[in-house]
């Protein structure tokens, strides 16, 4: 089912976008309901889908079983679909039933290459999230805890 652009408006990742850009992105997305225990991404496998949480709770685990959980609307999973080498760095599993927006990696990458403005706005935020989560999959201790 096509995603209503209004769904994206209160998601922080898309907060800076105009209606045109939201329309472009939402046209590529689909709703997906997830069941408790469902695996969305598998560490090491090709990153084929980018997810945005609409509802539900999720656990993402990395090397050495480091993990964190997502509980809020707008949080993302599967950012490796737009970051080389395009392989998931973590395994995402649904802790409860919920709903996510999914965007195919190929369509997302094509959108990013074809629209510099959207790419600039989105990739900055995705990279900020990537750097926050990096200690989990790289195993480096956070400076505050050393």
């Amino acid at each position: 089912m096509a995603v209503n652009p209004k769904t994206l408006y209160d998601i922080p990742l898309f907060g800076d976008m105009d209606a045109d850009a939201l329309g472009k992105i939402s046209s590529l997305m689909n709703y997906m309901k997830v069941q408790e225990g469902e695996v969305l991404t598998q560490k090491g496998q090709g990153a084929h889908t980018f997810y945005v949480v609409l509802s539900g709770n999720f656990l993402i685990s990395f090397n050495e079983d480091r993990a964190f959980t997502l509980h809020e609307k707008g949080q993302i999973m599967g950012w490796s679909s737009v970051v080389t080498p395009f392989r998931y760095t973590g395994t995402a599993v649904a802790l409860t039933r919920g709903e996510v927006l999914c965007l195919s990696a190929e369509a997302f990458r094509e959108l990013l290459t074809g629209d510099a403005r959207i790419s600039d706005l989105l990739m900055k935020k995705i990279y900020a999230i990537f750097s926050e989560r990096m200690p989990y999959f790289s195993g480096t201790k956070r400076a505050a805890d050393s």
Partner: protein
Amino acid sequence: MLGLKAISAQNGWEYALLGVSIVFTGLVLLALVLSQLHKLLRLWENRSSIGQLVKERWKSESAVTDQETTKSEPSSDLIESRRQYQMLVERIGEPFALPRLLRLAEKSGLHRPHATINELIQADIILPDDNGYYTWKP
């Protein structure tokens, strides 16, 4: 004929120098024009009396969808879950890896381990230590 003589014999230096100059000139000219283009357009737009369309009507509606972030379906009683999972945590030690707790819970045949772990996290009984591992609140 090879080497520098071959280049000179066929006017290679002239061709290369001229070629590089033309490519640079072309792109420099284009860059100069483009750097002023947006200013020219702005000048033109200020002459116009037609205002910009506001895209704010997207913002006027409060799009709050029902969130099920905290209300999961009824799982095991929280006190009983707490007791069961505390035993598992004592077995694996702290700080513990949440995926490991989940695997252990599944192996132990506990009812709906994913939802239960989520309830324990939401109730601040399982707490993150900011290193990717978790501790149990006594």
